[in-house]
């Protein structure tokens, strides 16, 4: 295998595919590597940990077709450290008979041991019919929903994002049992047939969100297989296994109506919560919100550090009360609302509250209060 291309092209491809490379390769050392394949002037770079696979395609100046699996992090670090300009990758036999990868640029030359290419797992081609989603809309929906998924492997179902057909559109749902985010994408109903639903790992969708965030406009091509989902955007294909299991019945958690409604400026609330949160030195200290007709008062009380309070102008209709939330979860929810003002609906201090935008019902963030004395 031999190719020549600009350093930055290679850095992008290796960096993107490398995000799927297994951190700890465990029983399969080859998974710590990235697979590079040259066919003509076409380079594909693939990284996988068997749950998540990212493949990047790039145009290069290919001289010799071939495949090599090289240590992912090492090769990425080497290429990133090279002087800007052309880089040449070439495989060759080492003195011991194994295959090495030679990386040269300017006056720099590295020779790197490789993994046997035959050990790299055979990855199935994307299955299912392709449907297209607007990248911008999907990226925003992922930004709003992925944050509510659980990061704890002890409950694997909650580490996923539910994608379900809903009223002719696509609905994304995630929950970690303390909060729940629901986002509807109207008009994206072709992705799933009515009643169909899949559970995609939030890690994969977080990576997709990163990819979409760096791409301007365009579409995302989605293929759903029986056990996996593949998202294609530009020159990158991201394949994730699906999570098997029954997602919690989230519909029953969403109250039909609320007697109390707060409307508050999004940035003003965010700034105030971030300030008083400075005193919440651990993850369990809540922020208390006193809801009054003339506005709200935020308070954080800690035995060890002291007290912080801040008043924020707001419109409130309902019974005066104090409700407390995990400040990080509250910030996550307020950040995800796209409008200048945020609606906070409450039942009482111990029942789920809902954050939503002022102008649409497309997004909902259900947040469980924290019990305080």
């Amino acid at each position, binding site marked *: 295998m031999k190719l020549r291309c600009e350093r930055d092209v290679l850095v992008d491809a290796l960096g993107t595919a490398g995000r799927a490379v297994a951190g700890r390769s465990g029983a399969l050392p080859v998974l710590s590597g990235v697979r590079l394949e040259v066919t003509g002037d076409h380079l594909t770079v693939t990284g996988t940990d068997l749950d998540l696979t990212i493949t990047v395609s790039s145009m290069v100046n290919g001289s010799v077709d071939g495949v090599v699996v090289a240590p992912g992090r090492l090769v990425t670090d080497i290429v990133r450290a090279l002087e800007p300009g052309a880089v040449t990758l070439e495989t060759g036999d080492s003195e011991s008979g194994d295959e090495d990868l030679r990386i040269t640029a300017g006056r720099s030359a590295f020779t790197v041991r490789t993994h046997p290419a035959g050990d790299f797992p055979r990855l199935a081609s994307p299955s299912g019919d392709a449907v297209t989603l607007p990248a911008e809309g999907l990226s925003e929906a992922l930004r709003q929903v992925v944050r509510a998924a659980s990061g704890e492997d002890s409950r*694997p179902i909650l580490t996923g994002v539910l994608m379900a057909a809903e009223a002719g559109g696509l609905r994304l749902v995630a929950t970690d049992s*303390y909060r729940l985010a629901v986002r509807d994408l109207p008009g994206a109903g072709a992705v799933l047939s009515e009643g169909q639903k899949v559970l995609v790992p939030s890690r994969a969708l977080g990576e997709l969100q990163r990819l979409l965030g760096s791409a301007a406009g365009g579409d995302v091509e989605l293929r759903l297989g029986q056990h996996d989902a593949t998202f294609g955007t530009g020159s990158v294909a991201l394949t994730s296994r699906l999570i*098997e299991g029954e997602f919690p019945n989230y519909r029953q*958690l969403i109250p039909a109506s609320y007697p109390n409604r707060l409307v508050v400026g999004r940035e003003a609330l965010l700034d105030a919560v971030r300030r008083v949160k400075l005193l919440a030195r651990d993850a369990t200290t809540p922020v208390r919100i006193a809801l009054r007709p003339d506005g709200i008062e935020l308070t954080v009380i800690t035995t060890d550090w002291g007290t912080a309070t801040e008043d924020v102008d707001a419109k409130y209709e309902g019974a005066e009360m104090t409700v407390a939330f995990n400040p990080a979860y509250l910030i996550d929810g307020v950040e995800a609302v796209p409008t200048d003002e945020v609606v906070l609906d409450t039942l009482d201090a*111990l029942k789920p509250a809902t954050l939503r935008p002022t102008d649409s019902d497309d997004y909902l963030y259900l947040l*469980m209060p*924290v*019990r305080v004395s």
Partner: protein
Amino acid sequence: MRLVIATCSVDYTGRLSAHLPTATRLLMVKADGSVSVHSDGKAYKPLNWMTEPCTLVEAPGRWVVSNPKGETLTITIDEVHAEVAHELGDDPGLQKDGVEAHLQELLAANPGSLEAGLTLVRREYPTDIGPVDLLCRDPEGRAVAIEVKRRGEIDGVEQLTRYLERLDLDGRLRPVRGIFAAQQIKPQARVIAAARNITCVEVDYDHLRGLDLGRLTLF
């Protein structure tokens, strides 16, 4: 258990010679006769010790501990600061899987956390192949056998299946359905459980213990 805090020096002779210069230390004499010398540091390891069988001969200002191998620990005591003796009795030993036993205990106290309306009949309900962790009745009066594991794997489902077969032979209980409860249940175990109409329930240990007091959850 006899505990003596004393300013002392210690000399060991046997396979080698070792000397601890004068300092204040804790001397521990256990019911089995073993003697150990501790400093005020480290979690468990004594500075010097003599395991049983050994003999302690006490003289004013001097303890001599010896064993049949000819090793000798000589403790020269300058001053005794405190001394206490207490009968500890038999120790139940280390429970290597205390979480699993505690889970069973917590679920027995609150079977409704597994399924609404469950009431406990008995913990460790006996069958002729061993006891099932919990036997309950649901609101319709049907018997429910519950196997509790820390990690829910195929073996646990197989175990519950065998119990269900045995319990179904009892006309007072038949038909018995099963619940497989664990902190985390592997996908393969879920598949097998579903094929056998066994309900899988993942339980939150901290929640059952009340350690997440104040952290209300949506479900």
